[in-house]
């Protein structure tokens, strides 16, 4: 029976893009393609890149650590398959362009099998200490799986200067098309709850809120039932939040649920909050209990031209193109391949680009769909209608920032708080003049960072 839920929590601004989740939300998580070759990027996270631990020709085991780094903000990478290192070379990276990767030739070409996971409600996290959990999370190379890829250990480790009290588990999945977190919440409910408890234990949070958008009543129901059934789950709350983009943005979710704003330029721990994605908590449980590193993840492949849209359990390092082929023949109607959802995802040019720990979806858009998007239609002058100001969840003045960047007035852009922008894309989405507002702001941020020598030329 369909449960109707009405989310109470919301934030200011935001847009309502067509959800398009129906394409893949009914498809349960299936094994992904068998891979001949995986390319493990050495930089799959925010922070210092790993250096390779293996050389060309070396034999590796499944789950073996193949790259690591001593920096605090970093996470090691592991091989998802047993095989031989073919090369350590450059591969396409969605953000960095070309980036070093370890390419592994698989011994046997087999579809990834999903380890089973049975956790009853009485999972007791008490036998693991905070240090043990943090160490296991670090060793497993867990990073934020919602898209940003921030090393999870750094987030959950208690910090005496910024004590964390509230943990928000992000099950919003506000991007159109993406359903991987939704399927995780339905199929891996117990694992998520176990991960939540472990993260709670590690971070010392006293209150846990699992926030799910109200367009996923089944997930809300499943998570609530699991929390109720679980022992020591009394300070875990499941709340429905309004379906609105970007509800799943960290800062917006905190504003919606706690009615508090993270300081501009600040991070959630400054107000005692920790936000984790549901897939990340599932990975934490797997890492701590089963000592399994993060080598596979669930990826939604969706789009009107995909023959078999669905949610696939794939080895990290699988080429995007291989995964697309696996979901049916790739037709020439596909005009844009987006790593992530259509609002914030990155359009990619090289289909050999490997899946990373943070890639939750591949969205394939048709010419007709992108014809509606900005670049294909002629940009006209800004008529200062103010729609971008209305939808900006960070309460910025996007059009002024964009025009300051366009005129190369970075000081002016900074005076309009360009760095407070979260690049959610709402301003570009609503712009009637088809201006790439978000694009200009992103460019301006890069220019500013270069000016301050934070980024290589």
């Amino acid at each position, binding site marked *: 029976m369909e449960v109707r839920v009405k989310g109470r929590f919301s934030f*200011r601004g935001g*847009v309502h*893009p*067509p959800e398009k989740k129906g394409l893949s939300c009914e498809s349960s998580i299936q094994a992904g393609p068998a891979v001949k070759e995986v390319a493990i990027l050495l930089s799959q996270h925010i922070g210092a890149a790993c250096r390779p631990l293996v050389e060309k020709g070396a034999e590796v085991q499944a789950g073996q650590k193949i790259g690591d780094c001593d920096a605090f903000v970093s996470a090691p990478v592991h091989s998802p398959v047993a095989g031989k290192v073919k090369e350590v070379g450059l591969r396409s990276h969605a953000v960095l362009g070309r980036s070093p990767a370890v390419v592994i030739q698989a011994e046997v070409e087999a579809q990834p099998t999903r380890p089973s996971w049975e956790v009853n409600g009485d999972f007791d996290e008490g036998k693991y200490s905070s240090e043990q959990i943090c160490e296991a999370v670090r060793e497993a190379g867990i990073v934020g799986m919602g898209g940003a890829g921030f090393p999870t250990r750094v987030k959950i480790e208690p910090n005496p200067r910024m004590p964390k009290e509230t943990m928000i588990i992000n099950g919003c999945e506000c991007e*159109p098309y993406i359903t991987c977190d939704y399927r995780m919440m339905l199929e891996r409910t117990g694992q998520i709850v176990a991960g939540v408890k472990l993260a709670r234990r590690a971070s010392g949070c006293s209150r846990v809120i699992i926030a799910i958008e109200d367009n996923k009543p089944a997930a809300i129901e499943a998570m609530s039932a699991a929390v109720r059934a679980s022992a020591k789950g009394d300070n875990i709350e499941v709340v429905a939040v309004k379906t609105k983009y970007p509800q799943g943005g960290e*800062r917006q979710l905190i*504003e919606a649920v706690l009615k508090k*704003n*993270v*300081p*501009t*330029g*600040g991070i959630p721990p400054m107000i005692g909050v920790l936000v984790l994605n549901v897939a990340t908590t599932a990975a934490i449980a797997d890492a701590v209990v089963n000592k399994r590193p993060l080598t596979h993840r669930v990826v939604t492949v969706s789009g009107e031209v995909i023959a078999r849209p669905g949610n696939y359990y794939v080895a990290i390092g699988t080429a995007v*193109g291989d995964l697309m082929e696996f979901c049916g023949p*790739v037709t020439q109607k*596909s*005009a*844009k*391949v987006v790593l992530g959802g*259509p*609002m*914030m*995802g*990155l*359009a*990619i*040019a090289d*289909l050999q680009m490997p899946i990373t720990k943070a890639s939750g979806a591949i969205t394939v*858009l048709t010419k007709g*769909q*992108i014809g*509606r*998007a*900005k*670049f294909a239609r002629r940009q*006209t*002058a*800004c*008529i*200062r*209608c*103010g729609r971008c*100001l209305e939808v900006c*969840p*960070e*309460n*910025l*003045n996007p059009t002024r920032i964009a025009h300051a960047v366009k005129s190369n007035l970075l000081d002016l852009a900074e005076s309009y*708080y360009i*760095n*407070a922008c979260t*690049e959610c894309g709402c301003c*570009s*989405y*609503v712009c*009637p*003049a088809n201006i*790439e507002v*978000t694009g200009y702001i*992103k460019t301006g941020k890069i220019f500013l960072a270069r000016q301050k020598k934070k980024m290589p030329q």
Partner: protein
Amino acid sequence: MLKDITVSFSPHISKPLSTRSVMVDVIIGLAPAMAAAGYYFRMRALILIATCVIACAATEWVCNLIRKKPCSLGDFSAVVTGIILALSLPPRLPIWTAVVGSVFCIAIGKMVFGGLGANIFNPAMVGRTFLAVSFGALMTTWTVPATLDANMSKVAPENILVSDRSEFRTQATPLAWSKMAIKNKLGADTYSEANFRGTITGEVGGCLGETSAIALLIGGIYLLIRRTINFHIPLAVLISAFIFGAIPYALDSEIHTEPTFAILDSGRYVQPFFHLTSGGLLLCAFFIATDPVTAPLTRRGMWIFGIGVGFLTMLIRIVGGYPEGVMFSILLMNGVTPLIDRLCKRIPAGGKPVVS
């Protein structure tokens, strides 16, 4: 393997909105006022509207040709400018004057600044001001609506000159009359309540589209429902005009000692409601002041802008030399819009950054 895949900035989808769809919404919002103009002023109204629209569009086309820019007629902004200009012209204005006004609107009001989005002043009001200053007599000749019997004895107070030329009859507008009342040339009670009702339905002398308050309200509410305009500016204009219109009315020494709720009183000043429904105030509040290009961007700025427009309009109507002050107040407030925008910066949701 895929050929020709596109790479661009996110977001990769967008709302089906365009400048044209925004402008079409405004045209739909103006439709009731155009219909009212057609009803009360018959062919004259339609001819004037058509003239202004065609002249505006032609001017924009020529300007683009001269500037070697792509044709920008597709955004329909010239059509909106033409309609608003036409609705703010007196019905008997000669065609050539309307053409001159339209050319000035687009060429000087908009295109010299670089086209849509770059103009500082509302183009329609620039054109109207040009006409008002250059052709004062033509711009203040008001015909009686076709629905009124022109031979009726009490079309206007008897002591107001009603010209009786052979082809048409003219009548003082409600605002001209209220100005005379202020200057003590006649008492405010000489105007009948029927004529006050005329300012609501539109059965009164005045500019084409300004006379019918009901038609303008319907169009304005349509734009509000469609979210083409925000409620801030119209509300600010109307509230401030009401308050600044009410102050002299309340202070009027000739007013009765007991509070009265009659629409019109015998003092020198008219009811503030009268100010709201007469003249171009409603057209201004819903269609001219809300022109996004020349109005501030932020909410606070919109309030300041609206209050300023309302205040200046009432200042000119009550104290100044002209009976109507909408066009000057709009232009003056357009001039300070960049300053208002600079004054009312938005603060990010997380507060100002701690480290700059």
